[in-house]
């Protein structure tokens, strides 16, 4: 067995386990966990949007909650106003987030390093405050609720989100689709130009890459991902709220991405999974479990900067004695260089 065999095996096990969730967990008497796993899947997309920028372009966005919020409101408002169907609402949520990301990105990707982190959080704060005060439209903190339309309407048979199993599979399908698309992108010529920019933006320009445009493309893609995440979360919760546009939501996504392992495709899923499961297990017994989350975050950055996925890869390489030239366990997954 080689490392890549082990990877394929691991991925297969993961996919099968996720497919089995709605049957296996209730059989174990843990119905409640089906929804938790669905929530993890949704949040993993938000973390993935952070990861796309941080892990593949070396840009730390602290403002992904803005696009998450646009995804949420795109769904809620379009359903309430125009009575659109499930897929149209999803598309509108994603489009709203992408357009917002395009507008913000045109300005934000001029900056790098700390400045990029600051400008992204500032943009998200502007819209957070605006959304909070525009209660007539957004409902502010309380948000707006809606009734999700059927996902499919096949000659009398309706696929409804009110069926938890159906809802789970719809979410799993969309999230898996997004991750598959990401996998395609990061291995494509576009993805290689992302990585080239991450490694050395000056040299990237000198081989003829339009660094600004490429960063903008990535920023919009990340915004779209965050938008899908927000749209799904709106369907899942049957409502949209401005409170999800606060920078703490962005910060949490950054933490998930880093704990999971930035620059590894599935890292965000593991990060979101580990910390949300931790929350569910501990928060009932210990109200102040966030202390532990904070400690875990710091310890991961200090001792396992490549996160869960990076450590898992290192483990695989050790186990199969096939050290790839790539795995330097001490190198942080995301390298953000100071501008020269």
């Amino acid at each position, binding site marked *: 067995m080689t490392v890549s065999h082990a990877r394929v095996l691991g991925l297969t096990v993961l996919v099968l386990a996720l497919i089995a969730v709605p049957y296996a967990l209730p059989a174990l008497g843990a119905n409640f966990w089906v929804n938790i796993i669905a929530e993890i899947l949704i949040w993993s997309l938000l973390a993935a949007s952070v990861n796309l920028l941080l892990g593949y372009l070396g840009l730390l966005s602290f403002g992904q909650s803005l696009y998450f919020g646009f995804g949420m409101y795109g769904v809620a408002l379009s359903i309430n106003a125009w009575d659109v169907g499930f897929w149209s609402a999803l598309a509108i949520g994603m489009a709203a987030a992408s357009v917002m990301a395009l507008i913000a990105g045109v300005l934000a990707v001029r900056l790098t390093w700390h400045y990029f982190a600051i400008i992204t959080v500032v943009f998200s704060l502007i819209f957070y405050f605006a959304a909070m005060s525009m209660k007539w439209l957004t409902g502010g903190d309380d948000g707006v609720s809606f009734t999700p339309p059927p996902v499919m309407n096949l000659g009398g048979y309706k696929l409804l989100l009110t069926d938890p199993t159906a809802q789970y599979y719809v979410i799993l399908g969309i999230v898996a689709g997004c991750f598959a698309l990401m996998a395609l992108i990061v*291995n*494509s*010529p*576009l993805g290689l*130009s992302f990585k080239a920019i991450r490694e050395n933006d000056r*040299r990237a320009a000198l081989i*003829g890459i339009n660094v600004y445009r490429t960063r903008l493309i990535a920023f919009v893609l990340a915004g779209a991902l965050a938008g899908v995440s927000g749209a799904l979360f709106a369907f899942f919760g049957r409502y949209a709220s401005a409170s999800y546009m606060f920078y703490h939501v962005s910060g949490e996504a950054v933490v998930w991405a880093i704990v999971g392992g930035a620059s590894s495709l599935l890292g965000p899923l593991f990060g979101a999974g580990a910390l949300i499961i931790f929350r569910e297990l501990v928060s009932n017994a210990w109200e102040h479990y966030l202390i532990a989350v904070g400690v875990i975050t710091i310890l991961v950055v200090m001792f396992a900067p490549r996160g869960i996925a990076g450590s898992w890869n290192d483990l695989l390489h050790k186990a199969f004695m096939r050290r790839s030239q*790539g795995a330097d366990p001490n190198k942080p997954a995301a390298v953000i260089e100071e501008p020269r």
Partner: protein
Amino acid sequence: MTASGTALSLSGLTKRFGGLVAVDDVTIDLESRKLNAIIGPNGAGKTTLFNLITGEIAADSGRVTFQGRDIVNRKPHEIVRSGISRTLQIKSVFGGLTVGDNVRAAVLAHERIMTPFRPVSSYRAVAARSNDLIEEVGLSDHRGALASSLSYGDVALLEMALALAAQPKLLLLDEPVCGMGPQETERTVAMITGISRHTDVILIEHDMEVVFDIADFIMVMAQGGILATGTAAEIASDAKVQEAYLGSPEDD
């Protein structure tokens, strides 16, 4: 002088950093099909001159004419696409990528391939060109190695491959053999003379032996300006040049 005979033409090119005039009203036509070299003491403004040509810093005034068009203050990636490639004095490649991916990224960028939904590995022609380039600079044994694991000399060679991937009409080399051992130097010098047979080359070099050996035309810079120009023999006997070099002896 006809445009086809000129590799690059600079006129009145000037760059100030605060009070310091790093490049001071440089005007020169560099001929095509010759190996042009720029020498001069540290801080003379040689690298800054390259940065102005490649659009990495904005010129305060002046023109850079390449193939009949003024390219001054255009974006670096546009200038690369118009046919000028360069290597950097402090060698720099994509450290976290393999040698193969480094070169593939450069070839793809040159071909303007930015598709998002097809794997890099499915581009056969790109792979073939990348392998040729890697072979040309002699890094075939390191194809799968991370660029950050290469020796300094090998990084310089990889950088050369990245610059060549753009099929430049003009290649700017900033101290290409700096930090190389004698054998690597010899190999690299041979490569440069080989390239200069089909591509215009402007070479900044500290190693006088190398310059006098291979350069057809030498431009000497000091304090941002042009001190002298001519063939190796003319420069070697130029009193001003001797003074400039004796006045500030080389530290390497």
